[in-house]
């Protein structure tokens, strides 16, 4: 990675970092990730403005989920740097990044099956607050409980809030995934195929939830369903073989002949 700062300009560097902290939710600079000889990510440069919504598209194996893992810290990048809200978090563990306002959902629901819906969301709300080691039972009038109830209502799960997560339908589990990601004042959310396996009705419910998110929350969404992905974002990044292949607005990407040939198929956009 190239060193961009020089000893002569520390003040200007600090100033530009301060400006970028307010402007950019995420800055990836030359991020690569290798698994032995396999290059899963190669030289990825992405900047995401605060409140921006972007889709990352690409065929299976393009490196989309690896990109998310590099951002969240599940895998450290082999080279390159990750900045969240202007702060270099490349070497920070996952839980420290989460405390800086980053959230994610998973391609396959990662929930706590032995606990109830309200417990799941309550723990998500408590994750960034003090008292995580408290041995006292939480009272109903606790602020985290109130927040959990609000989030459950926001993803339409009020009727099942005391049900065990293992007993929820697949669609309800996906909704719960989103509730967990919304807990605790997120500023950047990574949605990993949130519509996978959902029925058409559940998909339109998902679009409704995503469109209703507060404007200050930036997000990146990985999604194979173009009807969902292109309706909820302002910009699109196409990936192929671990590299960024194309960037643009949803319209530009949808009408790009190369993208159509490689990813969308010949029939897409014909009408």
């Amino acid at each position, binding site marked *: 990675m190239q060193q961009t700062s020089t000893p002569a300009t520390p003040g200007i560097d600090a100033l530009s970092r301060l400006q970028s902290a307010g402007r950019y939710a995420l800055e990836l600079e030359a991020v690569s990730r290798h698994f032995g000889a396999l290059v899963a990510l190669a030289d990825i440069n992405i900047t995401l403005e605060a409140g921006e919504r972007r889709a990352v598209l690409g065929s299976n194996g393009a490196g989309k989920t690896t990109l998310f893992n590099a951002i969240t810290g599940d895998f450290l990048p082999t080279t390159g740097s990750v900045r969240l809200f202007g702060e270099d978090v490349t070497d920070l563990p996952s839980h420290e990044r*989460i*405390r800086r306002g980053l959230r994610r959902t998973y391609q396959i629901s990662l*929930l*706590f099956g032995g*606990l109830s819906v309200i417990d799941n969301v309550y*723990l998500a709300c408590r994750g960034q607050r003090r008292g995580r080691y408290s041995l006292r*039972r939480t009272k109903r009038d606790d602020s985290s409980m109130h927040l959990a109830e609000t989030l459950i209502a926001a993803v339409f799960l009020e009727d099942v809030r005391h049900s065990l997560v293992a007993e929820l339908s697949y669609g309800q589990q996906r909704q719960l995934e989103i509730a967990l990601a919304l807990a*605790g004042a997120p500023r950047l959310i990574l949605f990993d195929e949130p519509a996978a396996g959902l029925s058409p009705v559940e998909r339109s419910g998902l679009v409704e939830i995503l469109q209703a998110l507060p404007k200050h929350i930036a997000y990146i969404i990985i999604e194979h369903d173009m009807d969902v992905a292109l309706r909820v974002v302002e910009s699109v990044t196409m990936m192929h073989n671990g590299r960024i292949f194309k960037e643009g607005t949803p319209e530009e990407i949808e009408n790009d002949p190369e993208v159509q040939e490689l990813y969308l198929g010949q029939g897409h956009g014909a009408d």
Partner: protein
Amino acid sequence: MDSDHLSAESFIFKNLNPAIYIVVAFLLVYPLFASNYFIFQIAAYSLILGTIALSLMMLAGYGGMVSLAQLSAAGLAGYLMAILGQNSSDVMGLGWPWWLAVIVAILSAALFSTLVGAIAVRTEGIYTIMITLAIAVAFFYFARQNYVLFNGFTGYAGILPPTLFGINWRDPIPFYYLSLFVASGFFGAVLYSSRSTFGLSLQAIRDNPRRMRALGYNTSMHRIAAFFFSGVIAGTAGVLLVWFNTRISPGSIGVDVVIDILVIAVVGGMRHPIGPFLGALAFVLLQNFAIDLIDRERFNTVIGTVFLLVVLFSPDGILGIWQALIRKLKLARQGNHSQSRQSVTGSSDATSTDSTQA
């Protein structure tokens, strides 16, 4: 199925099953009709072993970490009572006041358990079992070979509880109540805290540690904290155990006893804090009375067979068998209830049909 609600006040009164009042009353009046043998050798010993197994249940049932070093923590507390307090072996026995020795012994056991946790949380599943077993075996050999501190193979004898308020606390009835007080205190604490933020977090880490990290939790620190709390439980039980036996030697912390604790927890059931106590009672009864059925040298065969049968037919232990029975009874009662309702509805339908026809 609804899970328990998060509420402090509901824990104390509303959620208590009436059967619990009967059990509590029975435990309180038990010494009035039981012989000293049953009070001391059966009940008090079961409560102590159950408390050590409770520390394992807390880690394994709620945290998904099967630690075989719980008896080592209890054993360390027992050794420290002999070293810091008084013993009759003419080695060590620093003569500290009993209460100070108890506090230091329990805290040292908790610290030991925390260190075990700090090593073990880097592993999962079978590797946690192996690494904690290795620690338990290392501690056993260290105690056996160290004569300066642990008095080697012989260990220590003559370690007695204090005579306080004019009561000799090793007499069967006082010792039973002391054991009951400690066991019920930790039972209540574990049950209560299982619904606390820490308890819920621990269960969530068991279900999905990766997700918990993604929610901002330091999962390693949570697991280590669980080892600390389990060390407090094991250490306190270790003090009671050394007072019960009045002696401690490497044999008290050997691999066979380590496995006994695991057997107690598994046979009892790891899904609820009552499980270890059920397992301990079953184990102590077998240990005491299996020789009536079979040769003294072979009573472990009976215990092993019972263990095998329980695991084979109820992976959730005795507790699982009990819960399955309750479920079947409820279903049968519901079936009878709906049948009687149907017959009432049927007869009323028939009556209404008759009256319509008339």
